C-alpha cells in the first residue's frame, strides 16, 4: 500500500522544476486516479454484495457506510479533476478503496477472506495521511511524515502478524480458512491487539496534536480549507464517543449512531470543499516562474504553459515577418481566436499569442497570469538573444578590424615592394647606365653628382625595404611565426634566445598578433629595460598559443593604455586572448600573450 502510494505520488506531485523530462507533472494523475476509482467502485460493489449476503448488517447502516465509501471515491475524482496538481484527490480515492477493502473479510471465499484480513485496517493510515497532508496533498513537515509513516508501518506489521498467528475461525466459528495462517497463538492475538491499541492511541494523539498545532499556528490558507473536515470529524467523534459512553441501551444511541454515520458520509464532501478552496493558481505560477528561469525554446515554453494550464492542446504562436503568428508546430495561430491571449513585451508590442481549450472550472485569471508571465519570458529571451547577437557582431567586427588592418599592412608592403622599390631599382639602373655614358666625360662635377645620386638611391632602397618590413614582415606570411620571430630577434642588439620548437603554422591574425606582441615587447626591452638577456618562448598547447617575452632588466615599467603594448592588448582581446605584463623592480619584465588558435 505504502509503496504503491509513493509511486503514484512521484508521478503526480512532481513539480515542473524537479520532474522535467520524465513524467509530465499532473498529466499522469488523472488516469491513475480514474483507474483507482474504478478499482474502488469494484471494491465497493463487492463490499456491498458481501454485506448484503452476510445479512447481519442493518440495511440503513450498510447503505450509509457504503455511501460514505462511494462519496470518498467520487469526491476524490472531482478533486483530482478540478485540482490536478493537488494529491488530495488521489488520497481520498484511496481512502474510499480502503474502506471497501476492509469489507472483504466478510467474504466466504478463503482467498478473498484472507486478503480482507490483511486489509482489515487499511483505511486507518490513509486517513492519517489524508488529514496530515491536507490541503495540498503533501506531507510537508517532519512530524507529519513520521506519524504517517508510523501509521503505515504499524498497520502493515500488525495486520501481517495477526493474519499469520491469529485464527479468527477459532474465535468466531464458521469463518472461512485463513490461507496464510502459520499457527494459532491466542496469547499473541491478545498481545497484538493491545500493542496495536497503544500504537493507535499514540498515532491518534500525534495526529490531533499535529493538526491542533498547525491550526493554531497556521494561517488562513491552512485553517479555512481544513475546517469543514475537522468540524465533521469532531462531530462524528463526539457522537461516537457519547454513544459509547451512554451505552447501546440508551434511547439516544441510535440517533448518535445516525449522526456518526451521516457525518462519516459528509466527511469526503468536507475534504472536497477544502481541497477546492485551495487555489492552484499560485502553485502553477510558481512552477511557471521556476521553469521560466531557465533559458528555453519557444517549444519548451509552450510545453511548460501546457503543463501549468493543464491543456495539452495549448498553442503558442510567435510573430512571423508578415505580421501573422506562427505556432511552435509551424502552423499559423489565429490571434483573433476567442480563447487567444496576446503576450506583450516591454514596449507593449505583441510578441506572441496563446490559444487554449476553455475549461469551465478553470480560473481565467490563471491563464491571464500565465500569459503575462510567458510574455515576460519571451521578452527576456528576445532581449537576451538580441544582446548576444549584438555582442557576437561586435566581436566579429573587432576580428574583422584586426584582419582588415593586417590585410591593409600586407597590401602596403606589397605595393612598396612591387611599386616604389621596383621603380627605384629601375631608376638606379638608369643612373648607372648614365654614369657609364658619361664615363669618359671630363666634367668631374657631373660624375660626382651621379655618384652621389646613385648612393642616395641605394640608401633609399634600403630604407624602403626596412619600412616595408616594419609594416608587415613578408617572412611572417611566407614562413610563419617561428622564422619571423627568429629573424626579428637576430636584429635586436641584445642576446635574444628564441624557443619556438615544433611551432606549426597558425592562422594569419594569430601569427601577426603574436609577432607584433614580440616586436613591441622587444622594443620596450631596448627602450627601458637595460636588460642583459631576453627569452622569447612560443608554445602551443590545448589550442592556445602562448607568447612569452621575458627580460632580466630593471623591471617596474608600467604599461599604460597609450603605449604600444596597450594597443596590442586590444588586438589580443579581439582574438579572445589575454595579454599580461608581469614586472617588478629589479626582477625584470615578462610580457605574456595567450591567444586561442582557433
Amino acid at each position, binding site marked *: 500500500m505504502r509503496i504503491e502510494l509513493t509511486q503514484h505520488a512521484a508521478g503526480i506531485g512532481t513539480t515542473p522544476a524537479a520532474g522535467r523530462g520524465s513524467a509530465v507533472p499532473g498529466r499522469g494523475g488523472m488516469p491513475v486516479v480514474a483507474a483507482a476509482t474504478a478499482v474502488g467502485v469494484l471494491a465497493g460493489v463487492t463490499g456491498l454484495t458481501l454485506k448484503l449476503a452476510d445479512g447481519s448488517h442493518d440495511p440503513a447502516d450498510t447503505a450509509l457506510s457504503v455511501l460514505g465509501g462511494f462519496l470518498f471515491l467520487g469526491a476524490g475524482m472531482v478533486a483530482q479533476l478540478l485540482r490536478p496538481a493537488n494529491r488530495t484527490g488521489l488520497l481520498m480515492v484511496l481512502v474510499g478503496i480502503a474502506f471497501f477493502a476492509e469489507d472483504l473479510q466478510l467474504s466466504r471465499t478463503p482467498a478473498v477472506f484472507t486478503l480482507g484480513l490483511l486489509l482489515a485496517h487499511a483505511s486507518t493510515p490513509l486517513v492519517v495521511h489524508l488529514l496530515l497532508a491536507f490541503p495540498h496533498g503533501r506531507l510537508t513537515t517532519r512530524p507529519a511524515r513520521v506519524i504517517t509513516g508510523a501509521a503505515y508501518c504499524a498497520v502493515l506489521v500488525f495486520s501481517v502478524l495477526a493474519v499469520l498467528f491469529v485464527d479468527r475461525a477459532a474465535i468466531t466459528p464458521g469463518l472461512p480458512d485463513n490461507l496464510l495462517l502459520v499457527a494459532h497463538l491466542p496469547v499473541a492475538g491478545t498481545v497484538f491487539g493491545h500493542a496495536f491499541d497503544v500504537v493507535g492511541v499514540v498515532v491518534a494523539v500525534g495526529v490531533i496534536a499535529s493538526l491542533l498545532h498547525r491550526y493554531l499556528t497556521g494561517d488562513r490558507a491552512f485553517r479555512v480549507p481544513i475546517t469543514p473536515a475537522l468540524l465533521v470529524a469532531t462531530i462524528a467523534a463526539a457522537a461516537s464517543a457519547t454513544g459509547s459512553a451512554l451505552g447501546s441501551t440508551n434511547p439516544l444511541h441510535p440517533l448518535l449512531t445516525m449522526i456518526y454515520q451521516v457525518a462519516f458520509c459528509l466527511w469526503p464532501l468536507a475534504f472536497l470543499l477544502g481541497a477546492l478552496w485551495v487555489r492552484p493558481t499560485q502553485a502553477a505560477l510558481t512552477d511557471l516562474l521556476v521553469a521560466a528561469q531557465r533559458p528555453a525554446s519557444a517549444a519548451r515554453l509552450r510545453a511548460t504553459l501546457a503543463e501549468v494550464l493543464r491543456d495539452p492542446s495549448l498553442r503558442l504562436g510567435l510573430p512571423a515577418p508578415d505580421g501573422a503568428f506562427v505556432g511552435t508546430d509551424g502552423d499559423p495561430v489565429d490571434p483573433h481566436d476567442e480563447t487567444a491571449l496576446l503576450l506583450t513585451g516591454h514596449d507593449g508590442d505583441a510578441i506572441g499569442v496563446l490559444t487554449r481549450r476553455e475549461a469551465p472550472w478553470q480560473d481565467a485569471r490563471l491563464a491571464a497570469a500565465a500569459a503575462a508571465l510567458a510574455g515576460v519570458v519571451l521578452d527576456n529571451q528576445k532581449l537576451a538573444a538580441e544582446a548576444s547577437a549584438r555582442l557576437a557582431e561586435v566581436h566579429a567586427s573587432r576580428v574583422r578590424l584586426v584582419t582588415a588592418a593586417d590585410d591593409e599592412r600586407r597590401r602596403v608592403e606589397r605595393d612598396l615592394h612591387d611599386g616604389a622599390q621596383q621603380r627605384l*631599382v629601375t631608376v638606379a*639602373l638608369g643612373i648607372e647606365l648614365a654614369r657609364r655614358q658619361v664615363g669618359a666625360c671630363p666634367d668631374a662635377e657631373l660624375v660626382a653628382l651621379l655618384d652621389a645620386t646613385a648612393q642616395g638611391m641605394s640608401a633609399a632602397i634600403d630604407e624602403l625595404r626596412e619600412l616595408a618590413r616594419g609594416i608587415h614582415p613578408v617572412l611572417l*606570411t611566407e614562413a610563419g611565426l*617561428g*622564422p619571423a620571430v*627568429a629573424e626579428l630577434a637576430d636584429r635586436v642588439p*641584445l642576446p*635574444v634566445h628564441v624557443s619556438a620548437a615544433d611551432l606549426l603554422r597558425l592562422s594569419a591574425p594569430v601569427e601577426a598578433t603574436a609577432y607584433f606582441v614580440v616586436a613591441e615587447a622587444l622594443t620596450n626591452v631596448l627602450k627601458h629595460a637595460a636588460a642583459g638577456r631576453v627569452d622569447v618562448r612560443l608554445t602551443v598547447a590545448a589550442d592556445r598559443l602562448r607568447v612569452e617575452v621575458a627580460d632580466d632588466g630593471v623591471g617596474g615599467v608600467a604599461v599604460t593604455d597609450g603605449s604600444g603594448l596597450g594597443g596590442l592588448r586590444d588586438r589580443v582581446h579581439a582574438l579572445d586572448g589575454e595579454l599580461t605584463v608581469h614586472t617588478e623592480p629589479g626582477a625584470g619584465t615578462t610580457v605574456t600573450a595567450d591567444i586561442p588558435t582557433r
Partner: protein
Amino acid sequence: MDNQLSVVIADDAVLMREALASLLARDGFTVAAQAGDADELHRAVARVRPDVVVVDVRMPPEHRFEGLHAAVRIRREYSGTGVVVLSQHVETHYLSTLMAGGARGVGYLLKERVAGIDAFLTAVRQVAAGGCVVDQQVVHRMLGGQRRAAAMANLSEREREILSLIAQGRSNQAICRQLVLTKKTVESHVRSILLRLDLPPEPDDHRRVLAVLSYLGPWSEQAYRAGLPTAQQAQQLGS
C-alpha cells in the same frame, strides 16, 4: 665571347625585364627567353635549357615567393642550369630555402645589385659556371646577427672579412685577388676560421659555402639539421 651563355629572364615588370635583357645581351649573353610568371619560366627553361636563369623572387599571381619556388624547382629538375634569384629581402630564411639542394650554380642577390652592372654580370657568369654567389648585404646581416655575436667576437677583423667572402661564395683564389693576400695566408686564415667555428675543413668550395651559410643563418641552421623542412615546403609550393 666565343662560347655564348644562354639566359632566361623572369620578371613580371616589363621595364625591368627589358633592361636586364639589354644588359645581358650587351655583355654577350644569349637571351633565350623572357617570362612574366613562373609557368612561362618553366616552359621556357624546359624548351631552351639555358645555362642560367635570372628570376625575380616576387611574381604573379600572389607576388610573394613564386619566383623563389620556381628557382628551387628549376635547381631540382635541371642540374645544368644555374639560378640567380633577385630578391627584395635580406632575410636569410629565403637563402636557406634556395640553398637546400646545395650551393652549386646558385645566386641570391638583392634586386638593386642590378644597378651595379659589372658586379651583377660577373655574378651571373659565376652562377652560370656553377658557382655560388650570395649578396654581401645578406652576408653582412648574418655576420652582424645577434645569434652569432659571441662567435664573431672570437674572430679577428681579417678573419671576419674572409668569412664574409667565403659566405658570399668566393673561392680561395678569388679571396686572394680581392684582399691582395698570398694563397698560403688565405688558406691558413680559412683553416683557423673553420676551426674556431667548429666547422669541418672542406676542400670543396660549394660545400664550404653551404656549411658557413648554414652556420650563420638564424633559422637555416635549424632547418639544415632538421632535414630542411622549409625546402620541402618550398618544393611542394614550387611544383
